[in-house]
């Protein structure tokens, strides 16, 4: 019982926030590569963007990923997720 309580609490503490990442031009523009958001403020990728950048809209050419998978702006975000925003990719 006691062990279960600790297990649950640690799991909660670990996942009580959303990790937000910015890359390349966006990282420079916002002056930050990574920040944490409280999970209760956010329900979609767009809302994560709004809360973390204070910008109402997400530029059409900005790419979005949750847990390292490409997703659309209306994708639901949950506790412990890693959400990333970045400009068009130019590898190779």
């Amino acid at each position: 019982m006691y062990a279960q309580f600790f297990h649950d609490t640690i799991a909660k503490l670990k996942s009580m926030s959303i990790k937000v990442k910015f890359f390349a031009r966006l990282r420079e523009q916002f002056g930050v590569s990574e920040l944490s958001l409280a999970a209760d403020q956010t329900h979609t990728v767009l809302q994560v963007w709004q809360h973390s950048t204070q910008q109402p809209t997400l530029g059409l050419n900005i790419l979005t990923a949750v847990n390292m998978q490409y997703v659309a702006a209306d994708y639901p975000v949950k506790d412990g997720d890693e959400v990333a925003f970045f400009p068009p990719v130019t590898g190779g």
Partner: protein
Amino acid sequence: MQIRISNSDLDPYREIQQYQAAQTHLAGKYGATTVFIGSMREMNQDDAVVKMQLEHYQGMTEQYLQGIAQRAIDKWGLLDVLIVHRVGEITPDDPIVVVAVWSAHRAAAYEANRFLMEELKSHAPFWKKETLANKQTRWVEKNTPGYSS
């Protein structure tokens, strides 16, 4: 299959040779190897470029490249795939990416290699920041087309 992100100088042909030599399952099985090597040019969009910073999304990049390599292996029945991509600071003539495909026959090797490069260029999370001869820096935000019209 090997996917590798390298923070230091790449020797593309040695990468392939060493990888192939270690894949004993390949011996005598592959009739076709295709290789693509992308290298840094000294000119881009009519400007002289003196250096370039390559950034990537660690974790997502590897996962993405593993995904496309596996898709290519499944789709074309490839024997093996190697992808090595450079990150960090590079100068003109430096290799940026190596994609090597081993297959029984050439059609699969050509098509899979090109598929991998198009997917990599379109979706793998890498970014390039150029430093021009006049010291200005700029993010590259578009690629040249992969298929000529």
